[in-house]
């Protein structure tokens, strides 16, 4: 019996079939490349939740995800996959197949742990350019994911709506506000106004000015469905951007279901956290907005999973936003064109390699008797298999047809642009 079967997860197949994610109707065909997605824990989780407990009360309480210990083997498997694909991508960049790549090595726990806590029925993730591990955990089509690094399509070729994983974002901190806005949308969907008021609360207006009276906000929805939550990924460097401040402030004023998930990986390209984050801690900012926060060990996948689940749960049940700062380390270069030797010491890198998230997880699995050699062999083989599929997917991706330059700029393209397209197609192809 495989060790993870010990914790009652035997209905997960030992070997995951690579799953084809169906594109939605309005997404475009992706030519000859079959999508590759690791079958994520979450989807299984969703199924389980639904099967095990469909009572409204349970749903209202938010996530009823399994405990971290229960799913630790699965988290390990996902981290292995993320790492294997990451390694493959670095190799592909060296051989020239990818123009550039931003490695995640060292951050597998922060990404897989948080991604695994996301409930795709309700939640939506807003990634940066380095969230491969989240994509793995959420079951995003990984060839479509890698398309952004392959320079096929800015933002990727997966379906962001169906994947609950926004297009890959190149602007540092650019999507943190989107997460906040999306979260407001969920609150509105629940029938709540941004600034909540009890239905019959007296108006604050001057009673001498009857015109100024404003009706009470829509009565809060009393159904027990959880409010969907947005999870915004950003780095220590991104925390310096004004947009992060504006997003946290809006989220506080409006009590929005957002998880601000900062991966503090020690560096923003060549700038260390101490020269980036005044006061030294991103999570310490939260108190200034009246928000709860957690500073966690970002290399402990169980800790990350649990903290994220707690924060999502708070959001689902109307408790508003949370700031999580996952302390981790970017073991590799910023990107394949970066040389960390120019700005940091090998010692520092080595000391973090000792805290490798996969090794830490493996140790716990072994120490607690949750997994043994057989499991790790299988996990490694599975990771290799997935990464080879992704590699094959990358290598077989076809060029984008020229008309795609024009196809998606507008939902209703102006005639002038269509004319420009037609002229261009004539002239160039």
């Amino acid at each position: 019996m495989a060790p993870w079967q010990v914790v009652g997860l035997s209905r997960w197949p030992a070997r995951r079939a690579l799953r084809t994610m169906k594109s939605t109707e309005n997404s475009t065909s992706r030519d000859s490349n079959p999508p590759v997605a690791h079958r994520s824990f979450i989807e299984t989780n969703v199924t389980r939740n639904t099967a095990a407990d469909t009572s409204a009360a349970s749903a209202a309480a938010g996530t009823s995800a399994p405990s971290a210990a229960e799913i630790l083997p699965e988290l390990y498997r996902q981290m292995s996959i993320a790492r294997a694909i990451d390694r493959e991508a670095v190799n592909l960049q060296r051989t020239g197949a990818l123009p550039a790549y931003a490695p995640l090595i060292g951050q597998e726990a922060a990404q897989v742990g948080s991604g695994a806590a996301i409930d795709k029925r309700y939640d939506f993730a807003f990634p940066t350019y380095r969230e491969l591990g989240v994509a793995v955990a959420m079951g995003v089509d990984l060839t479509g994911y890698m398309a952004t690094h392959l320079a096929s399509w800015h933002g990727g070729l997966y379906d962001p709506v169906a994947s609950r994983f926004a297009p890959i974002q190149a602007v540092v901190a650019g999507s943190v506000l989107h997460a906040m806005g999306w979260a407001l949308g969920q609150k509105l969907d629940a029938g709540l106004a941004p600034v909540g008021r009890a239905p019959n609360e007296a108006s604050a207006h001057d009673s001498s000015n009857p015109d100024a009276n404003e009706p009470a906000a829509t009565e809060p929805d009393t159904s027990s469905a959880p409010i969907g939550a947005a999870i915004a990924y950003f780095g220590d460097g991104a925390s310096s951007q004004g947009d992060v401040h504006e997003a946290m402030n809006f989220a506080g004023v409006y009590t929005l279901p957002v998880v601000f998930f900062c991966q503090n990986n020690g560096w923003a390209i060549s700038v260390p956290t101490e020269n980036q984050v005044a006061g030294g801690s991103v999570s310490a900012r939260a108190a200034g907005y009246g928000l709860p926060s957690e500073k966690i060990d970002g290399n402990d996948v169980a800790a990350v999973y649990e903290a994220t689940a707690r924060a999502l749960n708070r959001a689902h049940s109307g408790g508003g936003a949370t700031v999580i700062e996952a302390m981790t380390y970017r073991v590799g270069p910023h990107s394949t064109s970066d040389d960390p030797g120019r700005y940091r010491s090998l010692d520092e890198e080595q000391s973090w390699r000792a805290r490798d998230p996969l090794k830490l997880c493996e140790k716990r699995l072994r120490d607690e008797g949750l997994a043994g050699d057989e499991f790790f062999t299988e996990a490694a083989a599975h990771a290799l298999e997935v990464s080879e599929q992704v590699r094959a997917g990358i290598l077989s991706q076809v060029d984008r047809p020229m008309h795609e330059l024009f196809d998606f700029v507008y939902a209703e393209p102006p005639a002038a642009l269509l004319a420009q397209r037609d002229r261009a197609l004539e002239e160039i192809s």
Partner: protein
Amino acid sequence: MTMTADTRPRTPHTETRHLSMQQALNLALEHSLAADDRTLIFGEDVGRVGGVFRVTDGLQQKFGAARVFDTPLAESGIMGMAVGLAMAGWRPVPELQFDGFSYPAMNQVISQMARMNNRSRGTMPMPITLRLPSFGGIRAPELHGESLESLFAHVPGLKVVSPSTPNEAYHLLRQAIADPDPVVFMEPKSRYWQRGDVLLPAPSDTESDAATAEHETTTPVGTSNVVREGKHATLISWGAMVSTCLQVAEYAAEDGVELEVLDLRWLKPIDAAGIQASVSKTRRAIVVHEAPLTAGLGGEVSAIIMERCFDALRAPVERVTGFDVPYPSGALEDAYLPNADRILNAVQKTLEYRRG
């Protein structure tokens, strides 16, 4: 490609009301909120107080604080929030309080709102209408008189429009809100209090999308409007400058010069065919805008005429514009803004031009 709303009244319309542009805009917002309950209005001071120009007056009272609400004072936040709301399937109509305060939001406008449909390959359309009180002429403080149409028109993914009358304001705003793409809606603030007849759809239709759907064929997005016919030269303009151009046409008519006045309305997409039709006829053109000359939209209009009317043209296209200086304080506002005299000078120069 389907077209959205018409800016001209449909038949039968049952109501004509004499309104200021501010009132017409307010009514358009009210009807849009009623027509689609995913439509949201937000921005600084748009809720309780109804906006500093009162364009959103009474809407929070009518539709509640979940449809019309105040935001914290952060323009990037407002536009980034609009993008997120659109990603969640809402139809946001944010207001930025003044033209000059769109600068802090430029990143969210240009790198996010304008590109999300493209980035997501059409899965995340951005039916956002950014309402932006625009242009000068009201002796306001610094950065309350900017003309940003050229900047926005240059951004792929945006549509840009500016109304010149209360009737245009009503119909163009409804059209912009109904449009599935991000539209920068530039309200000529110096015209907010000018009144005119507004032809409204039948009251029974105002609350349904069907009311706007029927308008689709006559005035699609990107159509300009000949507001006065003429034959000696074409004045091309938009926003607040249209009424200045109409005034100039009156003056010129006294001297027997018949000027055609073309209200461009849509600044992206620009109605190149409409410009061509008019200038092919009049063979002379003067483009008028408040924005500074260099890299202003007048250059684009001039280039379009170059490309489409080269043979017809009898004189170089004149540009009468703001100067290449920051929009000034009230004391120098009249000196800065194109006025009848400067436009008439350009008209005369154009008419008197003889090939050397």
